[in-house]
C-alpha cells in the first residue's frame, strides 16, 4: 500500500507551547496530497493548534512543519494554503458578497464570478446582499467557509467547517470536500462528528497533544475490535492504545 508520493504536509517532532502549558508534545505525521484527512480528538486536545502550525500562524517551540515542500507560513505558500478558522473571521459590517469578493480579490486570477459561484456552492446565494451580522450562526459559518474556498487553494485546512449545519448541508459540503480531493486538493478537516470521520481517507486522532491514531478509518475500527468509529475512538481515548500506519 505504501507509495512514494511526496507528502503535501509533513509535521516532524512538533512541540508547541501556548501560555504556560505545552499543548503539542513532539507530534509527527504526514498527509498525502489529494486526500481528505480527518483530525479528531477531544475538546482541548490540540486540533486547532496543529492546524495553526500547519498554516504558519502559530509560534512553534520545536520541530518542523513542511507544506508542499516549503516551511509552513512561507510567503510562497500564502496563495496555496486556505485556512478556515474555527470562529468565523469575516467582516460583520459587510454583506456576504462583499466579504467573499474582498477575499477573492486578494488572490491572483480569482474573479468576482468565482466569488459568486462559491456563494452558490455554500447555499448562500439568496443571502448575498445581507450583512453578515444579520445572518444566523450556521449561515455565518458558511460565509466564513466561502471566504476560504474562494481562493481555490491546493491545501485546505478546515477547522470544524460543518458545525451548526443541518444534515443536508453537511452532506453537500462533504461532497465538495471529496470532489476537491479528487481534483488533487489536500484537505485537512477537524470534526467532532463521527459519521463525517467515516468519509475521510485517513484519520488523525489526537489525545492530549499526542497522536494516538493515524490510519484509514476501516483499519482503525478493525484494530480496535469495534464495529463503528464512535466506539473505536472512545476505546482509543480511554485506553490510550495507538493505531499508527507504517
Amino acid at each position: 500500500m505504501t507509495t512514494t508520493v511526496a507528502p503535501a504536509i509533513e509535521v516532524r517532532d512538533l512541540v508547541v507551547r501556548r501560555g504556560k502549558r505545552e499543548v503539542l508534545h513532539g507530534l509527527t505525521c504526514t498527509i498525502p496530497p489529494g486526500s481528505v484527512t480527518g483530525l479528531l480528538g477531544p475538546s482541548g486536545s490540540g486540533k486547532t493548534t496543529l492546524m495553526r502550525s500547519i498554516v504558519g500562524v502559530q509560534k512553534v517551540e520545536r520541530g518542523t512543519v513542511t507544506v508542499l515542500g516549503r516551511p509552513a507560513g512561507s510567503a510562497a505558500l500564502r496563495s496555496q494554503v486556505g485556512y478556515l478558522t474555527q470562529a468565523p473571521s469575516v467582516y460583520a459590517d459587510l454583506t456576504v458578497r462583499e466579504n467573499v469578493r474582498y477575499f477573492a480579490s486578494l488572490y491572483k486570477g480569482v474573479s468576482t464570478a468565482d466569488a459568486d459561484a462559491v456563494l452558490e456552492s455554500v447555499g448562500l446565494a439568496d443571502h448575498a446582499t445581507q450583512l453578515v451580522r444579520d445572518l444566523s450562526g450556521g449561515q455565518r459559518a458558511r460565509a466564513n467557509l466561502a471566504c476560504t474556498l474562494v481562493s481555490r487553494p491546493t491545501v485546505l485546512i478546515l477547522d470544524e467547517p460543518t458545525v451548526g449545519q443541518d444534515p443536508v448541508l453537511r452532506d453537500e459540503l462533504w461532497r465538495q470536500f471529496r470532489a476537491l480531493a479528487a481534483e488533487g486538493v489536500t484537505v485537512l478537516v477537524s470534526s467532532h462528528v463521527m459519521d463525517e470521520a467515516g468519509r475521510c481517507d485517513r484519520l488523525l486522532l489526537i489525545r492530549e497533544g499526542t497522536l494516538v491514531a493515524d490510519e484509514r478509518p476501516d483499519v482503525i475500527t478493525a484494530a480496535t475490535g469495534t464495529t463503528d468509529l464512535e466506539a473505536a475512538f472512545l476505546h482509543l481515548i480511554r485506553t490510550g492504545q495507538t493505531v499508527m500506519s507504517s
Partner: protein
Amino acid sequence: MNGKILASTVRRVLNQLRHDHRTVGLLVVVPPLLLTLLYYMYYEDSPLVFQRIALTMLGIFPFIIMFLITSIAMLRERTTGTLERLLTTPMGKVDLLFGYGTAFGLAAAIQASIACAVAYLFLGLQTQGSVGLVILIAIANAVLGMALGLLASAFARTEFQAVQFMPLIVAPQLLLCGLFVARENMAGWLQAIANALPMTYSVEALTEVGRYAEPTATLWKDLGIVAGCVVVALVLASATLRRRTD
C-alpha cells in the same frame, strides 16, 4: 505593494463605513455643528478668536475622529480574527496599512471639504491662504490620527481600552498645540514637549495659511514633519502586525 489588493482594501474599508449610516452621519455633521457652536460663542464679541479657533479645529477634528475610528476598526480586525486571516493571504502588511490610510484619507477629505464649506461660506471664516491648503493639512492630520490609531490598537485588548487611548494620545497634543496658550508663552519644558508632538506642527501650518496668501517655507516644513510622524507611526504599527502568535 500590490495595486489590486490595495484598491480592493480601500473599497472594503469604505464599504464598512458606508454600511454604518450613523457613523457617516456623525462624520459629516459633527464638525460643522461644533464650528457653528464656536461661532455663536465668539463671533459677536471676539471675531478674531473665532477665526483662530475655527481654523485650528478644522485640523484637529479629523485627527481625533480618524484616531478613534481607526483604533476601533483595527482592534476589531484583531479580535474577530480577520487580521490573522488577512495575514495568511498573499496580502502584504503594507497593502493593509496603506489601504486603511487611503480609505480614511478619502473619508477625511470629504469631511474636511464639508466642514470648510460651512466655515467659509456660512460662518465667515477667512484665511489669507487658500482653502485647498486647509483641506490638505486636514487630510494630513487625518492620516496621522489614522496611523497613531493603528498603532494604539495593538496595545488595547477591548474597545473600552481603545477608547481610553483617545484622551491619552489626543489631550496632551490638544492642550500644548498652541490653541490655548501660545507656544512662546509656555514654560520651557512645556515648549519642549510641545515641540515633540506632531499636532503642534499641523496647528502651526494652519496658522501660516491664515496669515499668508502663499504657502510659506514654515508650512511645508510643518507638513513634512507631520508626514514624517505618519511614516514612523506606520512603521511601528506594521511591527505590531504579527503573522505568528501564541
